[in-house]
């Protein structure tokens, strides 16, 4: 099998305590891989930690959110001709060996969007009730409107193929969100695969979610979901 060019994108904000460990673990498991950290101008040691571990880092202002961070990753991947873009979280919640399995699945089955689902098996992930029911609602809506079965539509671990990357960077109105990308992929009739991935309890740093912005997040996702129904992508 020929060598695939793989880019790992890690969005971070103030993950200085753990990011070094995440990068070195990835480097052990994946032999040949490029790591791109997209940092929201962290006020701690993140930048130096990443540089010290020999990974590429791009800084994007926090106000644009995680969406723009991933979009930048997609843009970068398209420019440098990567075969797969792996998006994982920067807080050591996804274990690299799980991600490796997921990537193997993506390569073998030639799937365009591969999602690491936290709900296919028993994981350590316990979201608050608002988020849990929100995810269930989104899952139902995706099934109704897009006829795609996805168990974990807000997972932070997604693998994008070259075809999907190309399609996304061509569309200037695309704004990344975990749900939005599922909508786009199923709209384009791309293959979507899912596999269980464990999500460890967060040890350092703080999650970008709290109770109030869970509401905003869900509201935004539902809007994105409903508004993408009518979007037509040029062939």
């Amino acid at each position, binding site marked *: 099998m020929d060598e695939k060019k793989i880019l790992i994108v890690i969005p971070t904000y103030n993950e200085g305590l753990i990011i070094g460990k995440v990068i070195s673990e990835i480097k052990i498991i994946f032999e040949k891989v490029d790591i791109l950290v997209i940092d929201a101008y962290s006020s701690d040691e993140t930048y130096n930690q990443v540089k010290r571990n020999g990974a590429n880092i*791009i800084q*994007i202002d926090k106000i644009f959110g995680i969406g*723009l961070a991933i*979009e*930048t990753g997609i843009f970068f991947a398209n420019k440098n001709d990567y075969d797969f873009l792996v998006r994982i979280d920067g807080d050591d919640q996804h274990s690299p060996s799980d991600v490796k399995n997921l990537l193997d699945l993506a390569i073998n089955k030639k799937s365009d969007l591969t999602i690491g689902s936290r709900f296919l098996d028993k994981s350590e992930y316990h979201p608050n009730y608002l988020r849990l029911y929100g995810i269930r609602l989104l899952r139902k809506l995706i099934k109704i409107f897009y006829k795609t079965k996805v168990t974990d539509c807000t997972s932070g671990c997604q693998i994008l193929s070259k075809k999907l990357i190309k399609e996304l960077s061509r569309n200037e109105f695309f*704004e990344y969100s975990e749900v939005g990308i599922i909508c786009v992929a199923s709209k384009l009739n791309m293959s979507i695969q899912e596999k269980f991935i464990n999500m460890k309890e967060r040890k350092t740093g703080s999650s970008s979610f709290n109770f109030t912005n869970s509401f905003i997040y869900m509201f935004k996702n539902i809007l994105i979901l409903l508004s993408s129904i009518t979007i037509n992508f040029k062939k």
Partner: protein
Amino acid sequence: MLSLHSRFISFLIGLIVIFVILLFVRKKSLDPMYSFIWILIGIFFILISFFPNIIYLVSILLGIEFSPIGVLVISIFGLGSIILHLSTIITKHQRKIREFEKKIALLENKKSNK
């Protein structure tokens, strides 16, 4: 009917609005494109001062008997549409800024890796 006094005030307001807007455009603090709608509003005030019957006519068309309410309804609708228009402009700018941020970040990255 509007009294002569209030017609005069309406005329004055119209003139002031137009004057201020033109001043803003001249000082480059307002784009001529966006000044258009404000000048229209000024002209509307002046029109009312000359033909106060417009208010009654429009109110009747809207099915409102008490004409001051007609004025309120129309101004709320007008202001609402201006705000909506501004929101679309903000969205457009936001998208542009996002794009710039993305490109600048990538350029900076390229520079630092050289």
